[in-house]
C-alpha cells in the first residue's frame, strides 16, 4: 500500500493517461473477444450485431477516458479498464446464456443489460464531470442519511415494493424494477464518512470504560446507531441477509477506520453472529439456508423442492466441469444453473473460463478495490479517506458475500456480482461507486496548492492545508513543526526530493493523530522526517 511516487510533486503537465489507454485496449479485447467466441462457438458465426455492439462498447470506454482526461486527469488509470473488462465479460456471458435456448435462461437479456451498462457509465461520468470535488458531498451528510433510510425502506411500501424469491428488496416504478439497497449503500457510505470525520474523536475518546472496553457516549453514537438499527430492522422485514450483512459490514468497517477501536469490531461481529444464530433458530427459512450451506450434497437438501441446495450444487457441478482451464466460451452447460445470468454468473464463468478465468476475474476486482484503498490512503481530507475506503470495502464485501456464497464459505444470499450479474440497479450503483472512487483518486494525486517545504509562497498558501487547521475538517495538523508557522527550511535547501517526503507523510498520517494531540492511534515515530532532524515530534499542541 505504500506509495512510491511523491504524492504532491508539483507536476505541471497533466498525465497523458497512456497506461489507461493501453489497459483499456486489453480490457476491450477481453470482453469483445468473449462476445465473438460465444457467437462462433454456438452459432458458427460472429453475432449479428457484433460490430455495432463492439463499437458501442469501445466508444463508451473512449468517452469515459476522455472525460477522465479532461476532468480527472490524475485519477487512477487501472480502475476504468478493470471495470470495462469485467463488464464486457459479464455481458458476453449473459448473451451466451440468452442464446442457449434453455427455458430457464429466458430472462437473460444481454441487450437490456448492455443498455443498463451504458446508462450506468453515462450517469457515472456525468457525475464525474459535474462533481468537481468529492468534498461537496460532505455538505449534505444528513441529507444522505435521510436518502439512505428512505431507499432502504422503499420496498416495504405497499404497492411499490415487490417480493421476489422470498426477499422484499425490489420496487417497481413505471414498469422498471429497482433494488434501492444498491443505491442506499452509496448514500450511507457518504453519510458515515461525513458523520464520522467530525465525530470520530469524541466517539473514540469521550466515552466511559466498561469491563475494559471503551464505549462511546450514546449521544455521540446516536445518529449512527439510528441508521444502523433502522436499516437492520427494515432488512429483517425484507428478509435479505446479504444486504443486511453488507450494511453491517460497511458500518463496522468505517467505524473502525475512523476510531481504530478494534474492540468495537469484535463486539459488533459477536453481536451479528448472535443475531444470525438466533435468526437461524427463529426463522425456519434461515435455518434451512444454513443446512443447505453445510450439507448441500445430502439428498435431503438436494431434493427439497423449495429452498433446497439444487441451485448451489448445480453451480458446483458447473465449476467442477470447468476445471482449471474451462470448457471455453459457449462449450459448457452453465445454463443448467438456475439464475446463471444473475446470482450465479460466477459459477457460469467458472465452467467456461475455468479456474484461471475466475482467478483473473477475482484479481480484477481486487485491483479495483485496492486502488480504492490506495485513493483513501493518499487523499488528503478525512472525508475522502473514509468515503474511498468505505466504498472500496463495501464493494469487496459484496464480492465476498456473493462468491463466498457460491463457493460455500458462507451461506448463500441474494446479492449480485458488481458489473457482471444482470441487473440494472446493481450496474448503475456500482458505476456511481467507480465515479466516486475515480474522483477521490484524482484529488489524491492532483498536484495541490500544498506548499512544498522551502518553496516560495508557502507561507501565503499555508492556511489552505498545511497550517494549523486543514481546510476541510478542521483537524489541526500534527507533525508539522508548528501550526501557522512557516516550516524551517531543510538543511539541504529544500530540493523537491527531500522536501516532498515530509509533507506527504505528515499529511497522510495527520488524520489519525486527533484533535487532542493524543498520539494513541498512531506511532509518533512516523512523524519524524529523517531529512529534518530538528523537526519536533508530532502531537506537541495542547
Amino acid at each position: 500500500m505504500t506509495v512510491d511516487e511523491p504524492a504532491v510533486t508539483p507536476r505541471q503537465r497533466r498525465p497523458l493517461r497512456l497506461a489507461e489507454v493501453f489497459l483499456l485496449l486489453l480490457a476491450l479485447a477481453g470482453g469483445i473477444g468473449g462476445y465473438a467466441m460465444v457467437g462462433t462457438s454456438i452459432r458458427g458465426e460472429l453475432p449479428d450485431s457484433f460490430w455495432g455492439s463492439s463499437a458501442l462498447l469501445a466508444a463508451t470506454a473512449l468517452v469515459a477516458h476522455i472525460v477522465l482526461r479532461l476532468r480527472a486527469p490524475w485519477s487512477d488509470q487501472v480502475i476504468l479498464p478493470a471495470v470495462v473488462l469485467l463488464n464486457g465479460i459479464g455481458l458476453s456471458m449473459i448473451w451466451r446464456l440468452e442464446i442457449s435456448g434453455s427455458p430457464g435462461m429466458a430472462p437473460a437479456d444481454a441487450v437490456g443489460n448492455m443498455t443498463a451498462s451504458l446508462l450506468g457509465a453515462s450517469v457515472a461520468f456525468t457525475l464525474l464531470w459535474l462533481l468537481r470535488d468529492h468534498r461537496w458531498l460532505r455538505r449534505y451528510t444528513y441529507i444522505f442519511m435521510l436518502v439512505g433510510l428512505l431507499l432502504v425502506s422503499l420496498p416495504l411500501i405497499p404497492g411499490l415494493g415487490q417480493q421476489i424469491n422470498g426477499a422484499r428488496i425490489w420496487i417497481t416504478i413505471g414498469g422498471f424494477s429497482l433494488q434501492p439497497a444498491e443505491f442506499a449503500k452509496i448514500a450511507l457510505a457518504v453519510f458515515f464518512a461525513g458523520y464520522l470525520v467530525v465525530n470520530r474523536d469524541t466517539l473514540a475518546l469521550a466515552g466511559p470504560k466498561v469491563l475494559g472496553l471503551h464505549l462511546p457516549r450514546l449521544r455521540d453514537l446516536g445518529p449512527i446507531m439510528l441508521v444502523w438499527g433502522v436499516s437492520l430492522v427494515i432488512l429483517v422485514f425484507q428478509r435479505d441477509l446479504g444486504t443486511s450483512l453488507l450494511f453491517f459490514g460497511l458500518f463496522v468497517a468505517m467505524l473502525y477506520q475512523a476510531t481504530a477501536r478494534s474492540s468495537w469490531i469484535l463486539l459488533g461481529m459477536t453481536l451479528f453472529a448472535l443475531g444470525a444464530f438466533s435468526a437461524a433458530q427463529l426463522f425456519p427459512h434461515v435455518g434451512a439456508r444454513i443446512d443447505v450451506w453445510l450439507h448441500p450434497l445430502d439428498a435431503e437438501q438436494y431434493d427439497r423442492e423449495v429452498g433446497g441446495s439444487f441451485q448451489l450444487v448445480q453451480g458446483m457441478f458447473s465449476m467442477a466441469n470447468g476445471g482449471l482451464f474451462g470448457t471455453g466460451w459457449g462449450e459448457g452447460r452453465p445454463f443448467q444453473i438456475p439464475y446463471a445470468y444473475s446470482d450465479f454468473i460466477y459459477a457460469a464463468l467458472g465452467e467456461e473460463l475455468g479456474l484461471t478465468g475466475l482467478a483473473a476475474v477475482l484479481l480484477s476486482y481486487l485491483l479495483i478495490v485496492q486502488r480504492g484503498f490506495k485513493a483513501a490512503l493518499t487523499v488528503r481530507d478525512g472525508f475522502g479517506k473514509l468515503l474511498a475506503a468505505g466504498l472500496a470495502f463495501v464493494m469487496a464485501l459484496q464480492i465476498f458475500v456473493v462468491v463466498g456464497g457460491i463457493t460455500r464459505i458462507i451461506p448463500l444470499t441474494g446479492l449480485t456480482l458488481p458489473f457482471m450479474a444482470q441487473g440494472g440497479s446493481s450496474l448503475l450503483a456500482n458505476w456511481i461507486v467507480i465515479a466516486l472512487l475515480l474522483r477521490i483518486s484524482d484529488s489524491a494525486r492532483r498536484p495541490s496548492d500544498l506548499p512544498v517545504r522551502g518553496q516560495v509562497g508557502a507561507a501565503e498558501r499555508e492556511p489552505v492545508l498545511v497550517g494549523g487547521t486543514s481546510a476541510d475538517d478542521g483537524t489541526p495538523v500534527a507533525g508539522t513543526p508548528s501550526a501557522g508557522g512557516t516550516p524551517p527550511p531543510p538543511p539541504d535547501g529544500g530540493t523537491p526530493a527531500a522536501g516532498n517526503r515530509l509533507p506527504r507523510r505528515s499529511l497522510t498520517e495527520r488524520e489519525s493523530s486527533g484533535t487532542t494531540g493524543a498520539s494513541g492511534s498512531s506511532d509518533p515515530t512516523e512523524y519524524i522526517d529523517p531529512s529534518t532532524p530538528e523537526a519536533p515530534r508530532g502531537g506537541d499542541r495542547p
Partner: protein
Amino acid sequence: MNKTARRLASIVMVMFLALLVSTTWIQFFAAESLNNDPRNARTLYEQFGTDRGPIVVGGEAVADSVPVDDEWNYQREYAQGRLYAPLTGYYSLVSGTSGIERAENDFLAGSADALWADRLQNLLTGSDPQGSAVELTVNPAAQQAAWDALGDQRGAVVALEPSTGRILAMVSKPTFDPNELATHDTKQANDAYLALSNSDDKPLNNRATSEIYPPGSTFKLVTAAAALESGDYTAESVVDAPETYTPPGTNSAIRNYGGTSCSPSGEQTLADALRISCNTAFAQLGVSLGDEALQEQAEAFGFNESFAVPFGTAASVFPDPPIDPAFVATSAIGQWDVRATPLQIAMVSAGIANDGEVMEPHSVARVRDQNLDVVSETRPSGLGRAVSADTAQQLTEMMIGVVEGGSGTGAQISGVTVAGKTGTAQHGTGSEPPHVWFTGFAPADDPQVAVAVMVEDGGSIGTSEATGGRVAAPIARAVMEAVLNE
C-alpha cells in the same frame, strides 16, 4: 486513519485469498468427485447433445436424431415408434435407455473403440462428432404382418431366419411409443414413464425376449427330440396314449385336451401323438426318458441361457434334476416350472429347420460409421447342434403332420409346406384362459423363416376354448407368408 485503512485493505486481501482458495477447491480438488456425482447430468447432456446415429430397418431409419433448436440440439425421433419399440427401446432423459438404444449405445453415440479413426478425423476437421448407423436384420414386411396379425391381443411374435439366427420380426403388445419418453419436456416424459411403468399391461416389457411363459405343448418338440436322440424311438415308434396318465408318486392324473382319448387303442405312433398333441403320451414318454435327458435336450436348444440379441434376453427355464417323476411328466408337456420366452420357442423351430443346428439369435446386421463404411458386422454363429440332421428331418416330418392334419391346420399356406406345433398352456390357478402358442417354419423343405407366436390368456377368444391352433397359428401363417412373398 491510514493505519486502519491499511488494515481494512489487508482484511480485503484475506477475503479474496479465501475466495481463491474456495474456488480452487471446487474447480480442482473436488472437481473429480463432483463430475462423477450421479446427479450431475452433464455426462447425459453430452450424450444427448450429439448427433446420435440412426437405427435402420430395410433402408429406412426407425430411430433418428433430428436437429432441434433447444438446449439439447438433437431430438431423438422414432418414425414408427410402437411398431419397433421392442427392438429400438427408448432413449430418454428421464428414464434412461433400453433395447438397441442401450445395447448399441457406443456405436450410436460414436464413442465405440472401433470408431477412433472417425473421432480423430472429426478432431482434425473440426466437424461435430456423429454417431454410427445400426442396421437391423428385421424384415419390415414380416414386422408389419406380425403387428397386424396380432391385432389388439396381448402377446408376442418372433420370426427368425433359421440358417443364420437373424431376427426377421419381433413384435410385443401392448407396447409403447418411445417418442413419448424421448421428449425433452421432462415433465411430460416423466408422466409418460410413470403411466407406462405402473400400467398392469406392462407395455414397457418386451414379451418376446424378457418375459417367460409356460410353453405348453410347443415343448413337446423338445421331448420328441429327446426321444429321437435317445435312439430308442423313431417317428413311427408306437407309444402309450391312454385317456389318463397318473405318473408314479402322485394321485393326480394327466388328461388330454378336452378330456378326450388320443386313440381308441390307447397307443399311437410318436408322430401321431405330436400331430394331435397327446398329453398322456408325452407325459409318459417324458417320465421314461427322465429329467436329465429332458433338461439336456432343452439346454441344447438354448434353455437356461440368456442371449444378447444384442440387448439381453431372459433365460428360459427347465428346472434342474432331480425332479419328482410327477413333475417330470408335466414338464415334458411344457407345464409345471418349465418357462420359455417366445424367442426360445422360435429357436427350437429354427434349430429343427436348420438341420438340427441352433444359430445364435441377433438383430443387428451391421454398423456403418459416418462415412458409411462398415465398422462392425454380425457373422452368424452356431450355438451348437441340438439334434442330429436325421432327428431334425424326422421332427420336420412330424411337424408337417401337425399343420396338414393335426392341431395346427390354421397355419397352412397354399402351395407351401409348413411345419409347426401348437401350444395351449395352463397358467396361474388354471381357471384363467390359457396362453396359446404356435411355432413352426416354412417352407418345410427349404426353411426361410421360423416363427413363434404367443398370445396371452387366449387372445381375442379369451376363454378356455382358445387354443394355439385357433388363435396363434393364423398369426404365424401371416408372418411366414410375408417373408416368403418377398
